[in-house]
């Protein structure tokens, strides 16, 4: 009987993977979790170079798609088994929660060492996304909590060949909103597809809507709305909602955009089947892979008002954090410093066609990518605003715009619904 039990226990321990050797960890191995499928070969190449340089092994572990990656990071945080270096996909409040839970190392002392050498190597906008400024509403100590790997901007793109087909000047993208609507009418008449974007995934609707909100009412009023001081039923917000109705009615928007995922939008634009796209700078690499001969250009969303400048979303595209509980945190910081140094950043930019976060690395980038880089000054991002809108409000806002596009609701109705949810959420917090 005893033999049977011992045998059974032995089998069970083997099946469960218990192995004395497996608990021994190599102190010089740094593990990095990320979600960036297109960057994995370049990361692995850099890991090889780092091993040759320092003798420290770096494991880049890819977990895709990004939704699955996010869940993995959250689950690992709960189990206190996050890797040495990782990234967070989510809102600034999620970032803040990770810091409050003690999962993220404050990189400020490292950034500021040697007269701020590391800090000064980045574009200010790239670093801002990873910073918590004084008086932030999240209650986080002032500091920098992640190192940006690359930067991105999200703007409009147009197909130059289709522009020619429409009788338009291929070097003159629309300069204002009425010009965009006029092109929409031509697109409709020619039975072409207009603007494609991943509006089925909704956050990109939020992005364009906020671009126009900044343009129509300015940053202060947008932030006042988030703080609950200005209602969404304000005339300026109704104007923002109305722009989507106008785009739909003029023919600017491609059919089925409300359920379109960004991958489909990228395929349509890359294959020359859509006149416009609304996409981030990562698309340069994507389009190159899909159709290297695609003839296109980038431009800021055409202004709907001359009161305030157009502001697009931009800043850090992807960032890495160091696990504050990692035994290798000092080694991890050293590796991050090396990874974001100009040579490595230049290699990443060249290999992956993404904009480097290190300002000294912007040398050899393609003309289209340079167009994305040139508008960095006009960029903003919700993660630098210091306040976050409630998730329920963001969902109602974006779904409401979908309802306007499909002709189900008016801008006024959507504004009223969003405001109702805003008031409900504010009431919950007071």
């Amino acid at each position, binding site marked *: *009987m005893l033999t049977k039990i011992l045998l*059974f226990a032995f089998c069970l321990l083997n099946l469960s993977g218990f192995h004395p050797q497996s608990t021994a960890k190599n102190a010089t191995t740094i593990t990095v979790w990320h979600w960036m499928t297109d960057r994995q070969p370049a990361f692995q190449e850099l890991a090889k170079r780092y091993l040759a340089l320092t003798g420290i092994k770096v494991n880049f572990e890819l977990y895709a798609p990004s939704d699955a990656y996010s869940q993995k990071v959250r689950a690992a945080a*709960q189990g206190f088994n996050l890797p040495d270096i990782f990234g967070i996909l989510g809102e600034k409040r999620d970032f803040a929660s990770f810091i*409050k*839970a003690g999962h993220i190392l404050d990189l400020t002392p490292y950034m500021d060492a040697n007269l701020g050498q590391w800090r000064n190597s980045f574009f200010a906008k790239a670093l801002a996304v990873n910073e918590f400024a004084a008086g932030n509403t999240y209650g986080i100590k002032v500091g920098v909590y992640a190192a940006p790997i690359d930067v991105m901007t999200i703007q409009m793109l147009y197909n130059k060949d289709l522009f020619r087909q429409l009788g338009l000047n291929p070097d003159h993208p629309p300069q204002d909103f009425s010009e965009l609507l006029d092109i929409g009418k031509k697109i409709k008449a020619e039975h072409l597809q207009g603007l494609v974007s991943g509006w089925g995934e909704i956050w990109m609707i939020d992005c364009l809507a906020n671009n126009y909100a900044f343009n129509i009412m300015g940053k202060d009023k947008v932030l006042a709305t988030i703080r609950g001081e200005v209602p969404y039923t304000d005339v300026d917000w109704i104007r923002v909602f109305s722009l989507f109705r106008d785009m739909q009615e003029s023919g600017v928007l491609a*059919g089925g955009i409300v*359920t379109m995922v960004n991958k489909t939008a990228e395929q349509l634009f890359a294959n020359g*089947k859509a006149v416009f796209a609304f996409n981030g700078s990562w698309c340069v690499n994507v389009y190159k892979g899909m159709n290297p001969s695609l003839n296109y250009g980038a431009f800021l969303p055409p202004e709907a008002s001359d009161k305030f400048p157009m502001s697009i979303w931009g800043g850090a595209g992807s960032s890495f954090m160091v696990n504050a509980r990692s035994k290798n945190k000092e080694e991890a910081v050293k590796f991050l410093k090396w990874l974001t140094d100009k040579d490595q950043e230049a290699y990443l930019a060249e290999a992956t066609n993404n904009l480097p976060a290190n300002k000294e690395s912007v040398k050899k980038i393609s003309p289209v990518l340079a167009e994305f880089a040139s508008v960095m000054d006009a960029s903003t991002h919700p993660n630098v605003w210091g306040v976050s809108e409630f998730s329920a409000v963001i969902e109602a806002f974006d779904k409401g715009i979908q309802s306007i596009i499909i002709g189900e609701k008016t801008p006024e109705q959507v504004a009223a619904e969003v405001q109702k949810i805003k008031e409900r959420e504010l009431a919950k917090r007071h």
Partner: protein
Amino acid sequence: MRIKDTLENYIFVLPAVIIFAIFYIIPFIWVFQLSFFEWDGILPTKIFVGLGNFREILADKIWWQSMWQAGYITLIALTFQNALAFLLAWACDREIRMKNFYRVIFFIPPVLSEVVVGLVWQWILDGNYGLLNNWLVHLGLPDLVHNWLSDPRTALTTVAIVHCWKGFGWGFLIFLAGLQTIPRELYEAARVDGANAWDSFRKITIPLMIPVAVLVAILTILGTMQAFVLIIAMTGGGPAYHTQVPVLRILASMRGSSRFGYACAQGISFGIILVAISFIQYRFSKRARQYQ
């Protein structure tokens, strides 16, 4: 000796009990516990809100809309999908040519990945370059060309039909197994007594298939109410909220809003509704057996 035997038996059952407890009982208790808290899934602290999450669910219009929409897809599955499954099973149970071939063909959709099926159908139904619209134009029906998945009037029904296509094979298989258990002598005796095919179908096949139909109905309701992968792949729950179903709302609460407590409360509420439906079905099937 008897105690030793009993102990030995328990020791061998123990691993299964431990695995069951780790993967089913403990998570269920945690989910139940979390439903009374407000928690973002990251912070170590949770705020106790009592029945607040459940009260919020009662007032959550989108949640109830998603429930109604899941009910609508289920209704189509119960009628269209199961009727199709039964008719095809009945046809394959008869002496027709290539019946084994059909049996294999009809069972292919259920074994395919839901994501793949969703993406393929999305491609077929695409409003701009989809095959369906292309065929409609070639068939001289350009007026029917449509953005099937982006139009709120057609999105839910289109998703429901694709769900039926994907799921009818299970019903087909169970119905076929049920039909094969009906003794052939009953049909022969009926024929001798002068019954025609319709009489045999009405008086023999249908009554004897009632318990099987109830089983298929229970499985259809439980499976369809929880459908979401196909919907994510086809519409992502849009346009607006028109193809949202309860599981998508739970995911949205958890991933989109980082409200783990509310998501757990939604899960518990949804589970209670499904258990209630299953109980009603069970009572119904008991009656059907008594009738038989």
